[in-house]
């Protein structure tokens, strides 16, 4: 019983992080048909901003965390969209795909070159652990679940209850129709980039204490974000379900399977989705393949 609870909490915690990354990725896809291959690096990078603020600028963790989030949102949300995306989109969609792949490598190598290749420790959002019966649950995992839920709830509230949020939803649902309705689609896309960067920054705060801050974090995290998003069906609800499910399955696999087979999971899931349910778990059937 204790094992099940521990596994459940661990799975939901990891799943929450995957879900945050998957939601942002999905939002970008839905609003602007942008595939952000650097999504994993978007989650890797903010941790290094925070570490810089703490170690070089000497700020306390709480302040450094806020600084890290703000800088990430600015650079990866606003700046990236305004400079790279806008300029490259003029050349077409395929150049943008290549650009985001190159951007992922750029961020990864940049962090390796300028912050070192050694994984660095990162402060958790809650120290120690609590005991519930026989189970020992890390406080950080519990905090992760709470923060992830809160972030998703806040996002949902924003999307449902504010004017801007509803416009973003309309854009995500059908950009051409939204344009006809007079919604400033380009601006909604900018907001989507900012939201994505924010979600990724939250995910960074939640996952980096577990993985340690390393330039290579982005590879696995990115892959999990993509799998969660596609398996879910490339819509927001699907991203949440996909992320949580993947987190649970991944943690189960870590316990019961060898590392090699655990690494086969993303591949197996993607192939299964493509062959048996191309539109994803929560996708609409008109979006299935040929």
């Amino acid at each position, binding site marked *: 019983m204790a094992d099940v609870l521990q596994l459940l909490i661990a799975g939901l915690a990891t799943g929450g992080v995957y879900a945050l990354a998957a939601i942002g990725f999905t939002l970008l896809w839905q609003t602007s048909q942008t595939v952000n291959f650097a999504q994993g690096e978007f989650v890797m990078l903010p941790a290094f901003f925070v570490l810089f603020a703490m170690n070089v600028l000497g700020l306390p963790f709480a302040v450094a965390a806020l600084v890290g989030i703000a800088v990430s949102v600015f650079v990866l949300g606003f700046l990236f969209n305004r400079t790279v995306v806008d300029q490259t989109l003029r050349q077409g969609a395929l150049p943008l795909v*290549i650009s985001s792949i190159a951007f992922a490598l750029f961020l990864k190598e940049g962090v390796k070159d300028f912050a070192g290749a050694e994984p660095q420790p990162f402060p958790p959002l809650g120290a120690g652990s609590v005991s519930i019966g026989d189970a020992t649950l890390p406080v950080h995992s519990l905090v992760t679940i709470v923060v992830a839920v809160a972030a998703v709830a806040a996002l949902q509230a924003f999307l449902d209850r504010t004017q801007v949020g509803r416009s973003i939803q309309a854009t995500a649902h059908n950009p051409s129709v939204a344009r006809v309705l007079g919604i400033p689609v380009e601006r909604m896309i900018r907001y989507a980039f900012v939201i994505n960067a924010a979600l990724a920054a939250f995910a960074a705060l939640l996952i980096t204490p577990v993985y340690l801050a390393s330039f290579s974090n982005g590879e696995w995290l990115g892959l999990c974000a993509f799998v969660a998003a596609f398996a879910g069906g490339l819509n927001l609800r699907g991203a949440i379900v996909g992320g949580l499910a993947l987190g649970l399955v991944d943690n189960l696999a870590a316990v019961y399977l060898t590392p090699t087979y655990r690494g086969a999971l993303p591949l197996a899931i993607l192939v299964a989705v493509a062959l048996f349910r191309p539109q994803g778990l929560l996708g609409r059937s008109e979006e299935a393949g040929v």
Partner: protein
Amino acid sequence: MSPRALRYAAAGAGALALIMVPFALTDYGLYVLSLWAFATIAAIGLNLTFGHAGQVSLGQGAFVGIGAYTAALLTTRGWPFAAAYVVAFIICFALGWGVGYPALRVRRPYLPFLTLALGAFVFLVFRNEEWLTGGVYGINRVPRPSLFGLSTAGPLGFCYFCLFNLAVVSAAVWCLLRSPWGRALAALRANPLRAEAVGIDTRLYTLIAIALGAGLGGVAGVLYAALLQYVDPTPFSLTMSVSLLLMVVVGGSGRLLGPFLGAAAAVVLPEGMRFAQNYYLFGYALAAILLMAFCPTGLIGLGERLLMTLARPSAAAKAPP
């Protein structure tokens, strides 16, 4: 000279240079040239998949690795080198088809993620399955082949072997692209709607391009194993896959000489910039981003634009009143 004649002349000069240069190089220079030949072969394969069929594959590094391990496993057990090529090509072709088929069933971009996942899995197999791959210790003492009775064991001999491989692969791909297959690929890239309407099976040709690209990655891997004579998991990472893709793009995707230029920029250039070696990938990625923003047709496209601006004054002089 007409542009076509100019192009043939340039290619001819390049080929001649490649034949003569090895004699002037040190052992290290020969190693770099051999590495460039290897990278170009892998990039030519990826150019088929991406440049000609428009499919993004992030798994070419995995196919190179599979080719390398296949060669290492076979040749260290006494199998002939030629067999390594055949087996590696078949395995990689089949695997490429195996991921391409489900990927094309999904309407959205899917192959990049499927190949990303494949690469992650394959890397773990290389690193963890010691009984097969030797794990992190790898496979040692991979022999070099002898060609027509001549040994390729030394740096000069093997360098020529690599260039020979490159020549054969280039010729084969050139023939492919001139055939109706090449035309079908060009048509489906130019106008998929019309291609389908005239009976071109776009899915089949795309699948073939993906599988062939993977197969050529395997062939390149065989060469890599014999070049280093040692195979371990480290090189066959996502970084190699991305580097190869960027080589295709930076050189000029869909162009015959693109992979040659891209591989030169990625492999040869860093050797001349020793001071910046560690930062090279960082700069290369940045260069790719800038190219995509301003000149997506790569270095060849850049070169053509330059030639056009230089030729314009004379063209204006020749234009009829």
